[in-house]
């Protein structure tokens, strides 16, 4: 399924007709300089070339951010139903694609693939409370998988396919801004503070009302869960939404790196 996303990556390549505009501008500039010997026309040609180049490198957005937000919110409704049916209630672990290894080795290595969330079934799964060690391997075999004697519900969280390991370059704040602010528009702005084993994400004016009750306990709210997906993918380590605080016009999320 992750390969399907590559078929639609052309939307990131910008407008091809703008390349023609840039070429026209370059031609006009050369023609004006050498034949017409007119400086203003040459400058106009350069200006047209710059505008054409700017349009060419601007990625097109076939899916409006509002639609992306609605799709993400809708996916949470399905997850809520699955969580209720399976009785999964613990805090989920956001595992980057192809992760192997668990606690004790300083983090999991990540290979290709989408971020998945492993939600413990039956009993608290909060690693912070010391209720149990992390599995030695994060292997998903179906919807419910058993790892080191414990059952986990394996899901693709909202936003999982919006990130890819290839696109995980740059600092964490710009990655979160690109996904949470520009692509999905679920928050107005993002600020990140990294503190060794945890990441504190400050989300200004969250716009989504999705993610309460069981979903919030397991995955965090839509904003927190999507941030955890990005953190797990960027850091290539297992992450968990440790806490989520709703303030007046912002939300503060603490994401632990396990």
């Amino acid at each position, binding site marked *: 399924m992750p390969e399907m996303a590559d078929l639609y990556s052309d939307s990131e390549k910008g407008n091809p007709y703008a390349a023609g505009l840039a070429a026209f501008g370059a031609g006009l500039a050369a023609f004006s300089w050498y034949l017409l010997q007119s400086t203003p026309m040459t400058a106009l040609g350069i*200006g047209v070339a710059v505008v054409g180049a700017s349009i060419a490198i601007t990625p097109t957005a076939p899916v409006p951010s509002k639609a992306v937000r609605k799709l993400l919110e809708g996916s949470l409704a399905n997850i809520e139903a699955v969580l209720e049916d399976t009785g999964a209630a613990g805090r989920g672990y956001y595992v980057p694609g192809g992760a192997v290894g668990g606690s004790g080795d300083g983090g999991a290595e990540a290979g290709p693939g989408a971020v998945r969330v492993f939600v413990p079934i039956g009993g608290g799964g909060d690693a912070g409370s010391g209720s149990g060690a992390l599995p030695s391997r994060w292997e998903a075999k179906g919807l419910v998988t058993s790892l080191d004697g414990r059952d986990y519900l394996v899901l693709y969280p909202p936003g999982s396919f919006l990130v890819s390991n290839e696109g995980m370059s740059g600092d964490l704040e710009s990655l979160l801004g690109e996904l949470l602010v520009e692509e999905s528009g679920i928050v107005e702005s993002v600020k990140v503070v990294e503190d060794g084993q945890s990441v504190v994400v400050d989300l200004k004016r969250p716009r989504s009302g999705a993610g309460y009750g069981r979903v919030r306990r397991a995955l965090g709210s839509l904003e927190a869960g999507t941030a955890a997906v990005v953190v797990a993918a960027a850091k290539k380590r297992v992450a968990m939404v440790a806490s989520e605080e709703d303030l007046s016009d912002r939300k503060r999320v603490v994401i632990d790196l396990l």
Partner: protein
Amino acid sequence: MDRNALFNATLASLVAASVWALSSLGEARLDVYVSVLALVYFVCLAIFRPSRGFFDFPAAALFLAFAAIVAMRVISILYGA
């Protein structure tokens, strides 16, 4: 209109306006036009912060051109016209 479209529309408008204004004043030096173009581009970039699918090579080209223009001007001042 989203931020990216607004950036491109504003850039095009300001480029046209600046070329028209300078040509109306009778400006014949190409480096003046290029300098103003670079200024307009970077101001729009700072205000709108559009997203980029590739490396921003117009910005790089304009920056290098502006740097070359400034260097040539400084050299001409230091060593006489």
